[in-house]
């Protein structure tokens, strides 16, 4: 059975996590304004992934969940990454003329 209440330390931890994620969002905005190019994009993605991980780990209680959930998520991640990089590989290595590129 679930425990019936959060301890004050857990409540304090949740508040700290909340402000950490807010601060990370601020950091993302700061990096965006620095115009770091490709490095900036990489940093923004890295911080966004960290934010999502922290949120999932603590707010969605992934740190205490059963193996079943981790397996479901792992399988989802593997399928998603496969589907993402398979066509990306094709896009990157197929010879194309400029007219074949998508126009925005």
């Amino acid at each position, binding site marked *: *059975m*679930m*425990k*019936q*209440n*959060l301890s004050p330390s857990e*409540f304090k931890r*949740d*508040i700290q996590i*909340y402000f950490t*994620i*807010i601060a990370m*969002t601020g950091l*993302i*905005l700061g990096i*965006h304004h620095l115009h770091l190019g490709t490095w900036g*994009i990489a940093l*923004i*993605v890295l*911080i*966004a992934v960290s*934010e*999502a991980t922290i*949120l*999932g780990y603590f*707010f*969605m209680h992934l740190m205490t*969940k*059963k*193996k*079943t*959930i981790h397996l*479901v*998520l792992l*399988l*989802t*991640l593997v*399928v*998603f990454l496969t*589907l*993402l990089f398979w*066509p*990306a590989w094709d*896009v*990157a290595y197929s010879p194309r003329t*400029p007219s074949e*590129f*998508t*126009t*925005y």
Partner: protein
Amino acid sequence: MLRKIHDSDLVPYKVIPREDTGLYNAKFGIWLFLASEIMLFGSLFSAYILLRVGSFSWPVQSEYLNVPIGALNSVILLSSSIFFIRAWVALKADDIVKYKKFMWLVIIFAILFLCFKGVEYYQHFSHHEFPKTSVFLALYFLLTGLHALHIIGGIAVNIYYAGPGMYLRAENKQWFINRVEVAGLYWHFVDVVWIFLFSTLYLF
């Protein structure tokens, strides 16, 4: 002597965890649902990445979109997530007044999020920027529109659990607590999706 058949006899593990998964049915179900949601949003993110990589040129997205409103919406949605946790904790502690207070805060913040999104959409439409205008705007409206639909769905569920759905608490308290927990998992997931939408659409 015949025993009266209760609903709980027909649907096992709706309150207690199953032995094989270690989870009660609803929690296992919501995680499977969230996995399918990851695939849904993931496929659209993949489309965005592939179209962008495959394009000859691409607009500076932050010049098209309202970054301050996007950032404000991030704070609003993150705040609603922490309110949801407070509501769930209050419910477990039998503090119904606090539970309702925090649930309505979640709902109000979600509506606030939609209002700001509406302002953004209005700005785009008034500048004659529609999904048909460009590939980027088509992806922007698709991704944020789908996310907004998820927010609307979440609001409906949260209103139900803050109001009429509370009848269940009188029948089976633990069952109701579990339902709210499951709704909370969905809500946090919607928050996670927004983190990626804000980072990839507004700032690149």
